[in-house]
């Protein structure tokens, strides 16, 4: 989606706020983070669905609202989509209707911490799938982006780069974001010359690396 979240290369945002050096400034930010981490189990939703919901926030709100408020807004969207809450409940914090508890068990603290420490499984067996591109091959990023959640930034679209590694067979973010995962695809690290992307203002020899799933690429 050509949304406001796709910020690479945009201009006009001013100096880096390097003194905003903390993770949390308010307790509610910690609670918003923790709510997303726990509700991911009981609703449930995955990281790509949560990212997609953040990307759907109106651009004006995306730019001015706090990072963790956007996490909370995205969680609200996912709860509404799942039919587990209504708008009035979200406003008041008070329950209007019950939900089928057995289908949405809350994650116990110990399970959550253990799973967080273990990490997620994001690769799949290749089972005979053959990668379309080889290391050192020139590839062009497909010029048109997908309307939904996708992980190819605008600033590389249509540009030619070089495959530097095949990372493996990964769950595909575009499919995961709409609950149609894992639909695995090969994913590659692709190197681009900075001047290819940014013109003569970039310094010769500077380069950019992006990790791109196979459907984003075509041979060049």
């Amino acid at each position: 989606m050509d949304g406001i979240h796709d910020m690479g290369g945009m201009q006009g945002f001013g100096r880096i706020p390097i003194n905003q050096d903390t993770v949390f400034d308010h307790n509610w930010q910690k609670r918003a983070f923790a709510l997303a981490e726990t509700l991911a189990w009981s609703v449930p939703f995955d990281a790509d669905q949560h990212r997609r919901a953040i990307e759907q926030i109106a651009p004006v709100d995306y730019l001015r609202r706090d990072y963790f408020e956007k996490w909370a807004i995205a969680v609200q969207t996912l709860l509404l989509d799942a039919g587990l809450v209504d708008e009035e409940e979200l406003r008041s914090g008070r329950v209007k209707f019950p939900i089928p508890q057995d289908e949405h068990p809350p994650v116990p603290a110990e399970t959550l911490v253990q799973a967080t420490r273990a990490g997620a499984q994001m690769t799949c067996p290749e089972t005979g799938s053959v990668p379309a591109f080889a290391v050192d091959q020139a590839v062009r990023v497909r010029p048109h982006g997908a309307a939904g959640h996708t992980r190819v930034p605008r600033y590389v679209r249509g540009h030619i780069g070089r495959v530097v590694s095949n990372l493996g067979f990964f769950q595909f973010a575009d499919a995961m974001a709409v609950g149609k995962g894992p639909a695995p695809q090969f994913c590659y690290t692709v190197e681009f010359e900075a001047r290819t992307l940014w013109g003569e203002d970039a310094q010769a020899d500077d380069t950019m690396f992006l990790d791109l799933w196979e459907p984003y690429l075509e041979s060049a």
Partner: protein
Amino acid sequence: MPHDDHDPLEQGAALRVRALEELMVAKGLVDPAALDAIVEYYERDVGPRNGAAVVAKAWTDPEYKGWLLRDGTAAIASLGFTGFQGEHMRVVENTPDVHNVIVCTLCSCYPWPVLGLPPTWYKSAAYRSRVVREPRVVLEEFGLTLPEETRVQVWDSTAEIRYLVLPQRPSDWQELSAEDLAERVTRNGMIGTAAV
């Protein structure tokens, strides 16, 4: 930038989250103990000191450094640092010839097990938009001026790989203990927005 205690936007966000937490507990979707546990985990067990331990070991143990650059995931896991947003790690080495810097232009991807959760500036529109387009100007703002002959490599975390920068080893490293070396390593040094 200090936060204004009377900022209506901030107050609205706080109210939104409080109502959400009350509702989720009342609906039985969340165990409040799990909320406390996950915050405590990220405040106590995870943070840049984990990454600093990885870097200090790489500076003093050439065999480990080779492994770390070849298979970052396994070498980092061998020190006990694993988990969400660190399942697939790649470590990129700074040298006099090459300087690496990491970003996530699309959201806020960051190697949680080794660096903790990202600071606010890393998630800012300014950093995400500019570091890919004018990395040298951005690094100057952080106080890091690179020689023109040093190549800059920017890594945009667009898929499931998370990146960690291995900063250049300090010249006096042989005089320092492992603990002192780890203390030299800064979070920004491992993002690539500072030298160590």
